[in-house]
């Protein structure tokens, strides 16, 4: 697919963009001399890990950088030959949404929960003075149909929480394309979604691009997503462009060492050999036995509806042995996180038992529970909210020692924190900072350091690496594998991403709607998946655009 080039200028061109963020520490350079352009009908992917400056580049186009602390030091942004820097606030606002639109990572937090979807879609039209009242509503219904929401006439009066994550992202896309913009900036549009939903959203974007001749600037850290969407790619690292070119060339023949590391970090779906990160020691006797675990959530829905119950976990049984990694794989809503919360007694169980060294977790008294919580640690899904924003990293990592007084003398805390931070790849001076000063990946490392602080036997990782960059994911998994072999740890590794656990888990449990659909050794699952759902999960990984030639897209 070749883009129709304008003779003189590109549709949008960013030249030599340098953005600083000021802090007490002085200026932090978020982007440094970044230049790129995009043409109609073309997809430009900005690929980079967190902190690489990719989002800043895109926010600069929309004029969304807060100044201060941000400061645009140099650079021009030209749209159709017009310098955006020279435009007034009014003009720029009109351009945003009408000509340049943006969609964000988290569709829940960008939709207002107290208004109906129809109201919010209609607002797009009325804000730009295109249509009001019944006309806006009709247009809103059209858009919902266009982005693939079933029964749009009925669903237009529903509220955001009544839609699934994928549907919310569709609605966001609908709002973005409502005024037929020429450029769509998509900032990590599928990161918060399940793999199978991700594929649908990417298809939708491709379809809309084909229909409207949209120029898409897509920001992502996910190489597979990048490969499936990109015509051209720019790779960013520490605020600079390290590599740019046509997608296929970059992916098949990367030049820069950073790009090579990124691409090598990818768990290849067709790779059968690697078992490197699985446990090398023989698995010992079971330390945790879960027997027919059930969990119901009561859903009371008003006066008239009957009290319904959601069967979140159905009759789940499995064992975890010393030094073993059990992967629990499933999409959101499959009940996998509930399993973790129930096993750690954060939520009550409905029925069933879980024996940890022969003692039933659900029947432990306070004293026993304290001992249990020293031996079993959890790494949470969201590193942004799992740490108290008002505590320093030192306080966070040393908290287990404050709780379990017999682990370590107070005089040894500082050294041990330094050691633990070193173990997860952070520097000693990081101990005095606060969580918000770190990137997602760094925060997750801090969470792992905290989990390791009280020498646990079992660590429950709930989507522990999902929020991390690919190369960091590999590092973290390597780290976990290494710790397991050295310390004899066992893991319950909960994830939605099947390829990730392939080289790490010894056994895999595939869950769907609260029940186990498949439970087998990792090799068997990958060699010979028994259940259709497992196969569907495996095939949901996006395929590179140049390989998906069977479905050519009109330009």
């Amino acid at each position, binding site marked *: 697919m070749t883009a129709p080039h304008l003779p003189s200028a590109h549709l949008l061109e960013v030249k030599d963009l340098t953005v600083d963020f000021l802090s007490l520490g*002085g200026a932090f350079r978020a982007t440094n001399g970044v230049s790129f352009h995009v043409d109609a009908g073309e997809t430009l992917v900005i690929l980079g890990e*967190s902190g690489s400056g990719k989002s800043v580049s895109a926010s600069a186009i929309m004029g969304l950088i807060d100044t201060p602390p941000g400061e645009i030091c140099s650079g021009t942004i030209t749209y159709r030959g017009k310098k955006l820097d020279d435009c007034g606030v009014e003009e720029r606002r009109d351009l945003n949404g009408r000509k340049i639109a943006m969609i964000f990572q988290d569709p829940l937090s960008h939709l207002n929960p107290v208004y109906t979807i129809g109201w919010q879609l209609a607002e797009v039209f009325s804000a730009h003075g295109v249509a009001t009242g019944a006309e806006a509503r009709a247009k809103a219904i059209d858009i919902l149909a266009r982005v693939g929401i079933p029964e749009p006439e009925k669903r237009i009066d529903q509220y955001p929480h009544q839609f699934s994550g994928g549907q919310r992202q569709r609605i966001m896309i609908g709002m973005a394309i409502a005024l037929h913009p020429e450029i769509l900036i998509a900032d990590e549009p599928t990161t918060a979604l399940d793999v199978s939903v991700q594929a649908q959203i990417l298809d939708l974007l491709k379809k809309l691009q084909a229909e409207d001749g949209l120029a898409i600037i897509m920001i992502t850290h996910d190489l597979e997503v990048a490969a499936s969407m990109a015509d051209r790619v720019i790779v960013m690292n520490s605020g600079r462009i390290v590599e740019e070119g046509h997608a296929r060339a970059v992916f098949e023949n990367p030049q820069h060492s950073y790009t090579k590391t990124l691409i090598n970090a990818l768990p290849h779906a067709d790779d059968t050999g690697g078992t490197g990160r699985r446990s090398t020691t023989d698995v010992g006797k079971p330390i945790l036995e879960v027997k027919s675990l059930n969990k119901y959530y009561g859903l009371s829905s008003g006066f008239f509806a009957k009290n319904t119950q959601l069967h979140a976990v159905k009759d789940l049984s499995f064992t975890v042995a010393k030094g073993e990694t059990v992967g629990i794989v499933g999409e959101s809503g499959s009940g996998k996180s509930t399993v973790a919360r129930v096993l750690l007694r954060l939520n009550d169980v409905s029925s069933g038992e879980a024996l940890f060294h022969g003692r039933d977790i659900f029947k432990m008294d306070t004293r026993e529970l304290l001992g249990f919580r020293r031996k079993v*640690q959890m790494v949470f899904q969201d590193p942004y909210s*799992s740490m108290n924003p008002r505590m320093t990293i030192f306080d966070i990592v040393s908290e287990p020692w404050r709780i379990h007084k017999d682990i370590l003398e107070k005089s040894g805390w500082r050294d041990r924190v330094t050691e633990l931070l070193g173990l997860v790849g952070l520097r000693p001076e990081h101990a005095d900072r606060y969580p918000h000063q770190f990137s997602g990946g760094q925060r997750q490392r801090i969470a792992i350091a905290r989990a390791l602080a009280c020498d646990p036997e079992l660590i429950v990782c709930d989507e522990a690496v999902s929020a991390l960059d690919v190369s960091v994911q590999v590092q973290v998994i390597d780290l976990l594998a290494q710790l397991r072999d050295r310390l004899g740890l066992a893991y319950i590794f909960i994830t939605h991403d099947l390829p990730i656990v392939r080289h790490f888990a010894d056994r895999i449990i595939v869950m769907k709607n609260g029940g186990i659909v498949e439970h087998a050794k990792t090799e068997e699952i990958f060699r010979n998946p028994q259940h259709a759902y497992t196969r569907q999960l495996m095939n949901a990984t996006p395929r590179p655009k140049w390989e998906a030639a069977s479905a050519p897209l009109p330009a």
Partner: protein
Amino acid sequence: MTIPADTKQKPTARFQVLRLIARNKLALAAVIFLTLVVLCAIFGPWLMGNLVDKPNFRARNMAPFSLAQGWAYVLGADTLGRSLLARLIVGAQNTLGIALFAVFFSMLIGGFLGLIAGYSRGALSNVILRVADIVMSFPSLLLALIVLFSLGPSVSNLVIVLAVTRIPIYLRTTRAEVLEVRERMFVSAAMALGAGHMRIVFRHIAPIVLPTLVTIGAIDFATVVLAESSLSFLGLGIQAPEFTWGAMVATGRGYLANAWWIAFWPGLAILLTTLSLNILSNWWRTYADPQQRWRIELARSKKGIPEKRT
């Protein structure tokens, strides 16, 4: 909470707070004024001696800004010819004492009960809330009147009454915030680590709620000073010859037409004290939040270590 955690590791941090305050002109003015008021409260009675209740009939209702009777009468004198300046300085002790203790105790008790009511889901939470509702639905001045009438007016009773009537405000606010904070992920994380209820409430939840309470407390300070003055006016507050700024306003009220300064100066003192507390609590709230602190730190300096941003 946050600031001690910082100072523990860096001895220079304490001076850094002062340096940062000095950078904000408004906050600096507030600090200077409050220091002055506190110094007055501590040393005032000793400095002024008997000037406070020595009648000087030549200076009756003397207008301010005149040095005819010496420096002590620069702000004028009241109907008995007592120096207003001296009375302001000495009155600071009772005023600040009563108001600070009342605000402090109501914040402490209200905050504590609010933490319990928000954190525990049981019957205890309901009992606390209903009691707070009863206190709230009863007109606070009437309650104060009844209590003071039956217990007899004294400074300690006054503090108790003023504190009790303000408790529900802190209680309700704290509870509402706790309900939100307790659902955050880091509370689950602390639970998974084995943290007890005390640790979760006081180490994890309380530091997040505290800045809100301090802000309310600063605003409430003026309310308490005025409530105390109205009780004094009714004869149930502070008893002569003791006096407070509030009582001075109350007595000066009748002379507003011909001697405005009697009520004006103590009124101004109350206003400036409350304003200073407000400015300072606002500044502190920003400072205490690690995510907001850059706004203060950034105000002027632009050098130092670069930080990694997300």
